[in-house]
C-alpha cells in the first residue's frame, strides 16, 4: 500500500505500478487537479497545507477500510502539498481489483472519504485575494467521526 504526503509532483505510473498485480483485472486511477475556476471565480493557483504524519495515518486507515469494504487488492493514495499551479495534480489515488465495478466504487468512496477526513487544507489564490477553503464535505462541518474517543 503506497501512502504519501509530499511536496513533490505526483507520479501516475508509480501509483499504478504500486497496485498492479496479476490477479487484478481492473485498475482505477483518480486525479484531483487544480481547476482554473471555483464557484464562478478565476483561480490563479492553490496552496495546500497538511498535518503530514496524521494525514498519512488517516489515508492509510481509509485505504484499509476501502480494501475490506470493496474487496480491493491494493490501494495507493498520494496527496501533494505546497503551491500547485493550474492543471497540477493534488490528489492521486489508484486501486486495483479483480473486476471493474469494485474499482470504480472503491475508488469513488476513497476520494469521498479523503475529502471528509484527511487533515489537508486548500487555500485558493485569486488575482485579487485569497482564502482558506473550509471544505463543505469536511466532517468538521457535519458530524463527529464514528468511533471517536
Amino acid at each position: 500500500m503506497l501512502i504519501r504526503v509530499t511536496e513533490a509532483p505526483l507520479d501516475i505510473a508509480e501509483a499504478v505500478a504500486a497496485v498492479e498485480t496479476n490477479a487484478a483485472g481492473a485498475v482505477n486511477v483518480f486525479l484531483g487537479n487544480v481547476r482554473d475556476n471555483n464557484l464562478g471565480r478565476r483561480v490563479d493557483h492553490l496552496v495546500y497545507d497538511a498535518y503530514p504524519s496524521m494525514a498519512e495515518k488517516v489515508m492509510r486507515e481509509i485505504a484499509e477500510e476501502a480494501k475490506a469494504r470493496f474487496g480491493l487488492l491494493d490501494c495507493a493514495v498520494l496527496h501533494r502539498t505546497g503551491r500547485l499551479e493550474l492543471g497540477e495534480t493534488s490528489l492521486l489515488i489508484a486501486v486495483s481489483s479483480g473486476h471493474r465495478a469494485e474499482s470504480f466504487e472503491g475508488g469513488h468512496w476513497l476520494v469521498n472519504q479523503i475529502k471528509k477526513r484527511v487533515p489537508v487544507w486548500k487555500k485558493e489564490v485569486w488575482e485579487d485575494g485569497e482564502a482558506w477553503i473550509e471544505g463543505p464535505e469536511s466532517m468538521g462541518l457535519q458530524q463527529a467521526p464514528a468511533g471517536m474517543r
Partner: protein
Amino acid sequence: MGLARKRQRHVGYNQGVSVTILFFASIADALGHRRLELPSAPGDTVESVCDRLMTAHPQLERFRPTLLFALDEEYVKPSAPVPAGATLALIPPVSGG
C-alpha cells in the same frame, strides 16, 4: 523576547508537563505560528486546554465552532483527557483532495 526565552526554559526544565498544540491553515495564519506549548494541568481535557488557549489567544475564538481535535494524530472528542506530553492538533474543516 524575555517571555519566549522563559517559556523555552520552562519547557526544557519540565519535559512532559506541557501539551504541544499544533495549528494549520486559517488558524495558523490567525495566530502567526504553527505550534506552541502550554503547561499541562492535572485532569486536563481537550476542552480545558482549548479554554486556556482561547483565553490567551482570543483571536482563535471564531474558529471554535467548526473545530475538530486530534490527540497524538487521532480524532478525539472535546471531553477526551489530555495526558501531559501529548500533542493536540486543532483541525479546521478539511479541504484536501
